[in-house]
Structures are given as C-alpha cells and as structure tokens.
C-alpha cells in the first residue's frame, strides 16, 4: 500500500492506448497499459492501490465482464468505462454494475483526467475504510469472551450495576472487564466505543473528525 497508486489502462486500440497513457503521465500518474482484459487480469497486482480505465468494447472479455471479473475476485477498485458507442442504456447498465464513470469517446482531456482523479480518490477512500475496519476487527478479536460480553452490554447503554446483575458477577469485576476492553479497543470514551462497534456492523467508517468527507462519488 506504500506503493504509488497505479492507473490500469485497457484499450484494444494501440494508438489510443499510447495517447491515453501519455495524457495520464502528463498528470504525473503511474500507468500500466494493456491491450486486452485478459492481459490485464493476468498481470495486475490486486494489492496495489489504483483504478482501472477500460474500453467497453474489447475482443474477448469486454469492459463489463472485466468489471465483473474484478468483483468476483473481491477486488473493489474503481472502474471507469470508455466507449465509442455512446448509448444511454449501456451507460446506465455500466453504472449499475458499479462503474464510477462512463466516458463517451472522443472526450475532453479535462473530463478524462477528472474521472481518473475521482476514481483514484474513491479507491484511496475505500482502501482507508478497509484498513480501519480491519484494525477495529483485529482489536475486537483480541477481547476475551467475558470482555466481549460486557462490551455488548455497555454499548446498548446498560449501567455497570445492571450489567453486573445481568451476568451475575460483581460490579467491581464488570469495571475491570470494561476498562480492559476499552483499552484493547483503543478508546477512552463510551461514544468512541459505540462508534467503532457500529462501524464493524455497518461495514464502513464513521469518522467524527471528517464527518463532512463523503465517499467520493461519480459526478
């Protein structure tokens, strides 16, 4: 993940492929270019951050199939589809299948570069979320069964006294479990603890400090 994000470019038209690669390089992007979806799937690095920009109409696997193949592999990286046949139905279909953008050739360089920037931002965000969720899940897994049990009660708003009664142990012991669980979860307030457990349940990050920052979406 320390590696620079890469734009994987797929187009069966070699001349256009080179041109798009140059255009992306003028923006300082790292680019890897492929003439077919199959060649891309063979060679790409699933761990490397970045996005895919692919032509819709390719010999062999087409752009939509490429997108499906990626999600079948559990890869959620952003896919931008390009096509020379710009019909609305295909565009809608592509977006429903999860493409972040659908560009009709020929397009303006600014539009193209903005779509790639957007896709890269989306991928970076998704990776950050995944990273944070994994950290929270790791912390949760380090709890003992008893600590877990206490935590479950704590986040539903029960008081120590009530939890002690529920579980049939002393309030003092509850306090010890609770303190350890909070420490293991890396939180100091009840609010933070609630947020982290919620995050795992929702499968996304709720970050109080960046509440305004939404997941980048297609414009």
């Amino acid at each position, binding site marked *: 993940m320390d590696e620079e994000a890469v734009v994987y470019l797929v187009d*069966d*038209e070699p*001349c*256009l492929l*080179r*041109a*798009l690669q*140059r*255009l992306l*390089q*003028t*923006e*300082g992007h790292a680019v890897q270019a492929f003439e077919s979806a199959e060649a891309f799937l063979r060679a790409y690095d699933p761990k490397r951050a970045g996005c895919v920009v692919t032509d819709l*109409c390719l*010999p*062999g*696997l*087409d752009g939509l*199939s490429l997108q499906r193949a990626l999600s079948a592999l559990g890869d959620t990286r952003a896919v931008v589809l390009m096509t*020379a*046949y710009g019909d609305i139905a295909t565009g809608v279909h592509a977006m429903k299948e999860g493409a972040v953008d659908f560009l009709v*050739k*020929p397009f*303006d*360089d600014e539009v*193209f570069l903005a779509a790639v920037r957007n896709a890269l931002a989306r991928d970076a965000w998704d990776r950050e979320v995944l990273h944070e969720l994994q950290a929270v899940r790791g912390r949760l897994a380090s709890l003992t069964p008893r600590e877990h049990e206490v935590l479950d009660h704590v986040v539903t708003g029960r008081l120590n006294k009530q939890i002690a009664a529920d579980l049939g142990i002393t309030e003092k012991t509850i306090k010890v479990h609770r303190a350890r669980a909070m420490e293991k979860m890396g939180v100091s307030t009840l609010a933070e603890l609630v947020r982290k457990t919620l995050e795992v349940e929702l499968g996304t990050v709720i970050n109080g400090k960046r509440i305004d920052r939404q997941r980048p979406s297609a414009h």
Partner: protein
Amino acid sequence: MALGSIPAKARIRWVRLRISHPLPRPCVRVTMPAWPRQKAEGRAGSRRQGRLAAFQELTSERRRERELRLQREQLIHLARVGLLGELSAALVHELKQPLAAILVNAQAGRRCWKGTAHAQASVDEILEDIVDASQRAINVIQRMRELFLRRDAQRLTLDLNMVARDAVTLARSSMAEHGVRLELALDAHAVPLRGDPVQLQQVLLNLILNACDAMDANRAGMRQLALATAGGPGAEASLTVSDNGCGIASGLLERIFDAFFTTKPQGLGVGLSVSREIVAAHGGRIEAANRAEGGAVFRITLPIAEENSHG
C-alpha cells in the same frame, strides 16, 4: 449479313456497309475463306473468279451483351452499396478510433507545450502517432470511396492475401461489435490472381458479415471466424471463410445462392447471388457447406494468375 464478291488482286481500301445500330461502336465480322478454289482451278482461275467475303454486322449483338454486362455490374454495385449500409456504423467507428487517438495525442502535446504537464511526454512520439492515425483515417475514407465508386470491372494482377487483408480491415469494427474473434491463416506466399480487387473484397465482406450474423446466438467469447487463403494445389487458389454459428438449414443449402433468397429479416437476398456472379466472372466457383463441428464454411476457388505464380 452482306455478301460481296471482291475481285482478285483488287486492293480494297474501303467497304461501305449499312449498319442498323451504329452506336456506340459499330462492329462487323468479316469472314474470308482462304482462296477456296485456288487449288482446284489453279492460279489463273482464282485471278479470274476473285474471292468471297462475308460481312456480318455484330453491333446489335455486342450491344445486347454490353447491356447485360452493365446490368450485372449495376447489380453488383447496388449490392455493394447495400453492403456499405450494413457496414456504415462500423466504419464510422473505424474512423472515430484514429480521430480519438489524434485528439488525445494533441491534448497531451498541448499540456506539455503549455507547461501544465507534470511529466514531459516525447513530442516526437506524439507527432509520429498523430501522423499514423491521420493516415489510417484517410485510408478508411479511401477504402469507403472505392466501395462506393462505380466503375467498370477491372482486370488487375492482385494478391489474394491483400484482398483478404483489406476486407478484414473494413470488417474489423463489425466483427468487434459482434464480439467475433478472427483467426487469419493466409498463405505464406502471395497468391496472384487476375481480377477486380473491389469486387473480390465485396464477396469477402459479404461472407464475413454473414458469418457474424450467424454467430450472434453463440455465447459471448465463443464466436470464432476463420479466414484462410491458399495458393494451390495446382493452378487453383482457394479462400475459405468458416464460422461456428448456426450453420445453414439442410434444405436451404441449395437455395442460398439464389437471387432474392434470404433468411435475414432485413436482408434483400442479393449478397450471395451477386457473390456467385462475381466469382464466376473471375473464372472461379463458390461452394457452401455445413461443418461437422457446427457452423458453416464457404469456399471460393479461383484460377491462379500464371505470369508470376509463386513457388
């Protein structure tokens, strides 16, 4: 028919004939038997009797032939224009590709020039690609123009491999649109023929587009078109187009080359009949068959041009 007796030893410069159809070019056949009675009657006799000549006016006959030929060429041309209609969407795409490449290259070049680029691309390479793409766009237009143009059938020495390549270039986008994979197996040597390159291209385009249609019902990724040329055996060149599509219903195999016979909802039924016409005019033949493994195969056999046959 006019018969005239020409005195022996007379020097004939002009013969005046009345011709019923003087246009476009009068045509007369003159038949003169070689001194028919010379041997029987000796030299003196022949000098006396003279020689018999037959003048046959052929203008109207030639004109009828010419009209038929023109009609046939007109039909071939019309079929070709129809073919272009089928190809037009794909040809527009074929033009869009190099234009898109030119545009994107120019945009990348502009960013470098204006200094807004983070990294400099090689301007040399950009310009080289722009030149190439422009040339390609011009070539597409040139080929379209050739298909649209109407002119008399040509008899040129050509290479069957080149005809195949040109047809494939024109049909490339159509094949992509149909999701068809092409397997091209051209004879390693040039296959010389005498004929009209545009008409032969027309035949091939027809077969390719038919094959694409026939494979539409196949699963994506399972549409295989094979095109092969061979200079031989013997003095015959062959060109085969095979697909793995739905094949030809057994009862129809006899009728597919008939004029106005079609299985396509939008078809006119002239493609294959005109193809057979063209191939026959080139001294060849065209046959269709179903493949054992599924799909159809069309095989065209043409005489190899002798002057520079390959070996």
